[in-house]
């Protein structure tokens, strides 16, 4: 049985790396009591809270945290007509937080995710691990059988070409979850009692050309390298699909990272996922996605971005065109989505006008 770390007050407060360069983005419709458990690890950082759902409700934030909060009214005010690209009544709205942030790095976490314990019983500082992942290079061109070679105690194995050992900058760090695993609705229905109790002590780079299902529950990324591609799509209210926001972003960022020579890591850190959502509700939301993903995946696997797409925004706009072109025939939703993708880039550039567009070069 896994359990969350219940008393993190005594957790060692290490030096808060990247304190002024990282924002924590949290979407919520309820309260933020879970932050109390994360206090020793999160308190030094700035929070961006994106309030989904009823904007008249007041979200209570525990004392001592430095934060800015945006509800639907704020989003509409700030983006005007472009606000249509931000999902309503779905945690996908969190990507608004990425857009308004002024920091170099983002860490996003769900409000039902608590501090996990490692096998020795120690509370895991997930943020610290994500930062380590982001600050160390990735190795997407050749798989290292001892996983992340930059971790303490690991290295490149015999046969690993020396020319590939420098690695590439890491754009995304994808963490995992103990207790309630991130299963889809059909799997949840078949295995309602399954809990993830296996602590796999590894971080690894997802190889170039390989797609993966990116979960937004415990995710960090280099905003300057890949931020504009982290659009979480149109989900929730008024949309035919839900629970595919992070998946969509994951396929987009992976294709773009592969094109621009950036790395994506997965594995540690673990958080403790406490709440299992209702599988019947999930099934209704995911239903179309389960069928559509059969066509979406081959689409992404076949994407080849032109050489002149040298920035994330250019790649993303190109991708939006391809979505309209190739996926539009599956469902009109994809036409809407393609348009929203363009709107998103417009909005991003408007809110982040610092001259040069994000380049996919070394940070």
């Amino acid at each position, binding site marked *: 049985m896994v359990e969350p770390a219940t008393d993190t007050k005594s957790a060692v407060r290490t030096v808060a790396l990247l304190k002024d360069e990282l924002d924590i983005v949290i979407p919520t419709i309820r309260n933020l009591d879970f932050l109390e458990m994360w206090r020793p690890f999160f308190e030094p950082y700035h929070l961006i809270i994106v309030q989904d759902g009823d904007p008249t409700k007041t979200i209570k934030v525990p004392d001592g945290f430095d934060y800015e909060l945006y509800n639907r009214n704020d989003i509409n005010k700030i983006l005007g007509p472009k606000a249509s690209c931000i999902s309503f009544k779905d945690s996908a709205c969190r990507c608004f937080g990425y857009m308004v942030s002024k920091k170099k790095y983002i860490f996003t976490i769900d409000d039902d995710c608590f501090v996990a314990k490692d096998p020795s019983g120690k509370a895991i500082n997930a943020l610290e691990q994500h930062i380590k992942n982001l600050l160390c290079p990735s190795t997407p061109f050749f798989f290292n059988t001892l996983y992340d070679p930059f971790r303490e105690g690991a290295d490149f194995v015999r046969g690993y070409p*020396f020319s590939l050992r420098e690695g590439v900058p890491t754009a995304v760090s994808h963490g995992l979850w103990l207790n309630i695993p991130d299963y889809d609705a059909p799997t949840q229905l078949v295995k309602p009692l399954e809990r993830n109790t296996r602590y796999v002590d590894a971080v690894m780079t997802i190889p170039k050309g390989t797609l993966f299902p990116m979960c937004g529950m415990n995710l960090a990324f280099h905003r300057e390298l890949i931020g504009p591609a982290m659009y979480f799509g149109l989900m929730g209210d008024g949309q035919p699909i839900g629970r595919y926001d992070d998946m969509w972003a994951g396929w987009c960022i992976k294709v773009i990272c592969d094109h621009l020579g950036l790395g994506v890591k997965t594995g540690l850190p673990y958080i403790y996922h406490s709440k299992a959502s209702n599988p019947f509700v999930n099934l209704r939301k995911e239903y179309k996605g389960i069928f559509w993903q059969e066509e979406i995946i081959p689409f992404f696997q076949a994407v080849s971005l032109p050489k002149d797409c040298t920035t994330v925004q250019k790649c993303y706009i190109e991708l939006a065109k391809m979505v309209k072109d190739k996926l539009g025939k599956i469902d009109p939703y994809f036409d809407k989505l393609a348009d929203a993708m363009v709107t998103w880039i417009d909005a991003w550039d408007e809110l982040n006008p610092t001259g040069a567009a994000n380049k996919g070069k070394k940070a």
Partner: protein
Amino acid sequence: MRTQPPSLLSLAVDASVLHLSHFSDLSPLPDHILLDLFLKRTLRAGKLNEKILKLFLATGKEEVLSLIQTLNIQHILTPVLPTKSPKMSVVNNIEDGEIDIVIGALHSDLRPFMSAWKSIFSRYHLIIVKDPDLKDDLQIPEGLSFKIDIYTKSHIDKVVGSSTSIAFSGYSCKYFGFLVSRKKYVVSIDDDCVPAKDADSFLIDPVAQHLRNLATPATPFFFNTLYDPYRNGADFVRGYPFSLRSGVTCALSCGLWLNLADLDAPTQALKPEKRNSRYVDAVMTIPARVMMPISGINIAFNRELVGPALCPALRLTGEGKVRWETMEDIWSGMCVKVVCDHLGLGVKSGLPYVWRNDRGDAIESLKKEWEGVKLMEEVVPWFQSMVLSRTATTTEDCVAEMAKRVKEQLGGSDPGFGRAAEAMMDWVELWKKVGSGPSPV
């Protein structure tokens, strides 16, 4: 007082005790003599056995029977022993008889190795191939209940002859074992490895884990973030396409190493104290078209599917008897990966771990001309760009095609590649000749 001499009857009864086993029927005997025979003579003399007891029972005489009952004399029931049934592996219906464990002996004294592995290997058939360069005789512990076949230089010469460019010396000797094995699955572990221990200090059985890896599907077309979805307690995550959830057959299982990890000489020389103590509890499929360095220290494979693809082809000119001085497995591994990708088979990496003993000196190995490092720079991009033709539908076809390309495209840059190409072509021929059918040894 003088004792009475024995009566004639007494003498007759005594004599009959001695020859009781020759009697077929005691019923003609008068009751009192029968009782006397039974009680005083047979029992007292300790001559009662199953057959004789039956004799007495057969008389049907009441007094004899009640005596037997009172004395509580019982038949010894021989338990019916079950016929030796093939032992099944705990999971996935692989029978022990489908597995060969192939060990390349680079050390003559295999006693510590065999003792360490006894409890795990003893149920399987072992093939030990002695490095032809090894001068001393192999030492195997006595009295082990192993089923072992040992092959030496003479066997290799007899089967392979001198017509081949393949050298089976050093670590390449184990490929001879792969060639002559007739089992579906082969597990191969270097002779300087012993079982690792888990957190409770129980020995980890790498054979069982390798077989689990090979018996469950691989998922090379989409990465599962919870790693092997077929493991207990794991599954496919949200976002994993359903059409890809049945996976493909796993043809190769690559295990890892605790203590002395398979690092190259420069790395180990730079960090001489570095030892791997991290046990990563995961098995994962290496995605399609992704290359990796496959180490030969701890592997298992489906011989029927990919046997010919594991080829002893690339020999360094300075090749030695420590892993730091070889590249044969790395080359062979990339061949296998290309073949698997082409034929739609899977390759897994991760568990099981073995404990690799300290051996050799990285710095000494470094002093030798380190060509392996140089060669890899060319080899990796070349394998990564390899796309085999549609007409290559068998493993042998794939290897033959790769061999041709090696000769044409890499042969010019280093003679080692030219030799590797030859060896690969010879290997395919050898495999066709003696890789199946009756054993050539």
